[in-house]
């Protein structure tokens, strides 16, 4: 019972990182300045790498190989939050989304390194140093854009108002996840949310950005998706599905 439940939760973590990395890879060759083009690609590579680690654990729990899970699964079965499937938007939107997600990953991983499940703890420990760097990078960017100029402030405010309710979905638990919290495998999402809101709220305020009033997540279930996910997957899976699963690429 716990294995199936854990597999679903691990898949949700994997899908979030995969799609965020996928979306951010759209900036490669198009970022505002060359150094940041390289830096942002690094963040995307890290997120894809983290997804890989979670898909490998998912395979250990279910027997399903990562590439089959990624390329031969339809939108209805993806368990990502809507936050990461949204189109990349402008630079303020992409950077702020990455920041909100990195802040969430940092509070999450700080708990997961102490998970009672050894594999979960091990994977979290691998990701944590990279995620600390992510947060340093993106929080600096949020501060510079928030305080930099009227135009950047306007765009950041618009992005924040759009993204906030989507970000809150990160703390909506999957069905029956309470059992994993009780077993000290995953942290209590309400506690995570409080930590995240305190940290993010303080940093946004220091960056002259007003924390939106919305309290309810944009979607409650990780099975609910926007039309953007189907479009994303159609493109992402096109080449893989031009042959049967198992062909070597």
């Amino acid at each position: 019972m716990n294995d199936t439940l854990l597999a679903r939760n691990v898949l949700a973590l994997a899908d979030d990182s995969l799609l965020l990395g996928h979306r951010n890879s759209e900036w490669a060759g198009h970022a505002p300045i060359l150094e940041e083009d390289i830096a942002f690609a690094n963040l995307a590579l890290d997120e894809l790498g983290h997804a890989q680690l979670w898909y490998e654990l998912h395979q250990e729990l279910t027997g399903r190989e990562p590439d089959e899970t990624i390329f031969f699964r339809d939108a209805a079965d993806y368990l990502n939050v809507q936050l990461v499937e949204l189109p990349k938007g402008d630079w303020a939107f992409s950077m702020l989304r990455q920041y909100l997600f990195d802040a969430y990953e940092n509070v999450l991983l700080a708990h997961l390194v102490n998970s009672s499940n050894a594999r979960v703890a091990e994977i979290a420990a691998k990701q944590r140093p990279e995620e600390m760097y992510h947060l340093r990078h993106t929080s600096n960017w949020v501060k510079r854009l928030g305080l930099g100029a009227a135009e950047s402030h306007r765009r950041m405010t618009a992005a924040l108002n759009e993204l906030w309710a989507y970000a809150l979905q990160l703390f909506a638990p999957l069905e029956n996840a309470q059992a994993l919290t009780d077993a000290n495998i995953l942290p209590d999402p309400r506690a995570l949310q409080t930590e995240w809101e305190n940290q993010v709220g303080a940093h946004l305020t220091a960056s002259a950005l007003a924390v939106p009033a919305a309290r309810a997540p944009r979607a409650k279930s990780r099975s609910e998706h926007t039309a953007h996910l189907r479009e994303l997957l159609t493109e992402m899976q096109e080449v893989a599905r031009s042959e049967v699963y198992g062909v070597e690429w």
Partner: protein
Amino acid sequence: MTETEQLQAFEARIARGEKIEPGDWMPDAYRQQLIRMISQHAHSEIIGMLPEGVWLQRAPTLRRKLVLLAKVQDEGGHGQYLYHAAETLGVTRAEMIDALLAGRAKYSSVFNYPTLTWADIGMIGWLVDGAAIQNQTMLAHCSYGPYARAMVRICAEETFHKKQGMEQIIRYTRGTPRQKQMAQDALNRWWWPSLMMFGPHDATSPNSAQLIRWGIKTKTNDELRQDFVNKMVSDFHAVGLTIPDPDLYYDASSGNWISGEINWDEFWRVVKGDGPCNAERLQARREAQENGAWVREALAAYAAARGEG
């Protein structure tokens, strides 16, 4: 010292194998040739991110996605190293980028061809990065220190680019009929553009003699191209692919594979801006520059307000 004595001392340094460094005396023509070559090379790396970049979202496995993103990112890094090398000669990156976006600067014609199938990704790694390595291995011995050092860094990374491409194409030649067909089709389309990467024949290459005299290059365009053809023909034959050149033959006396004539009309047309994707490539760069303007300005304002930058 007179100008002639300075020139003699300069050429004696190059003959001794010394590197010329920023601040050292150099003939103005040396400086101008280097600025032209290095900035073109930098632009090629940056534009080179685009044809492969459009396949990042369609890579058929997670591993291929990681590899391709790392490669496209590396090309940006190469552009970064090269702009730095040119900057040491007294030109700014903003000036070089302006010249590119205004259509005044050249870059490698090969990036003006479209990527039509996923097999193009492997073929570009093998052929286009392979050709780049041929050229860059020579430039790592260039007499200008900053260019040589950029090349040393770049060559180490290009080897990864080439090998990941070879791995992919080798798999397809042993894969499904459709994969085999895709690999051959990609070779058919990329073979000639990659031969063109070495530039015009020596006889029609006005700068060649001086570049060699000053140690900027150590081999001519045709010599580099011949080395490349020899290596590639043997490699592609080994994996069972056909070189799309009916005139290709082996010359036993020289040990060289002699290829048919390059379509030079096409070469000059593409170099001068009229290739299949020239407009699209420059448009993508212009949009990135314009869409990023508010970002660069905001951060400049942030730093200025804090007395930095």
